[in-house]
């Protein structure tokens, strides 16, 4: 899959629907990280994620798909137990 840094200056897309091959999470600055000790598996983060990037795993924990997470931070703010923190992307 192509990444946004391979794009031209100004992120110009010259053809229609050329944005499709890019990953949606390439431009984020922060990513969520889960503390499994504080997590109660309530899945509120899964409910509130606007991009559907958080997946319910079989063991009950929720995992953010880093391909699609845009790093908005809604999950970290809505978690009642403070189990999610936003880490700076490296």
């Amino acid at each position, binding site marked *: 899959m192509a990444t946004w840094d391979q794009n031209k200056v100004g992120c110009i897309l010259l053809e229609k629907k050329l944005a*499709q091959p890019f990953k949606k999470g390439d431009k*984020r600055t922060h990513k969520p990280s889960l503390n499994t000790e504080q997590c109660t598996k309530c899945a509120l983060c899964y*409910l*509130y994620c*606007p*991009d*559907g990037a958080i997946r319910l795993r079989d063991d009950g924990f929720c995992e953010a798909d880093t391909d699609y997470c*845009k790093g908005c*931070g809604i999950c970290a703010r809505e978690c009642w137990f403070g189990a999610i923190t936003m880490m700076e992307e490296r």
Partner: protein
Amino acid sequence: MDRYAVFVPKLLPRKECFVPDASISCKGCGEALAIRLVYKALGSAPMHKGTWKIPFKQPVPELKGADKDEAAMPALLRLPKEDKQVLSICFDNEARTGKNISTEFWRKRMPAVAVAEGVSYVATASPGYPFDLIAKVKKACSAPGDAYLHILCPCPVGWAFDPSLSVQVGKLAVDSNLFPLYEVIHGTCFINIALAKPRPVTDYLRLQKRCQHLSDTDLAEIQKQSALEYSRLSASSKQGEKAHERH
């Protein structure tokens, strides 16, 4: 685990109808969240590769002035039906208020127009209260006759607030009574969330940079008008019915 009131995997279907591949929204988009919840309630019709499987109509851009909502509404409701029931959902991100935000911008006339047009089920919803939204979409599908849903979608780019606050802003719009959640079934109005102590509108408006220029007197005016409008609404409604659980 049962002692928690909110335990999402028990309350919602696991099937994900929203394809994240096709989502070209900004981060923290309230509209994407609302669309995802609507699809979850409908249970089918996945959004795929950027195309909508459901008829989609942009608001009429040629119409200018304050009456554009009212003018667009009958056109929306006069779709070719052929004896079918139509569920129309308006995702309102208040984009057309633009820079002309006055003390009147928060008024939502579209549900009132839909009631006047004779739509049998009209409701307002906000992604800040997701279970309420999902319940309303399911109800609108099962209700006899046409249905109209008005969903207020917080827009972090247009309203200029932090993307992580999207859900909170959606909640505050309801909690400050600027966007009361109600449903009108065959002309009878029910208020879903009736708050004993609404939050002041400054909590909601001061979060957004689009309302930075509003002076304190403007905000006092908005507070007064919204209280008036809300009392008018609650006077015409039957309270205590169908109160959804707060989250």
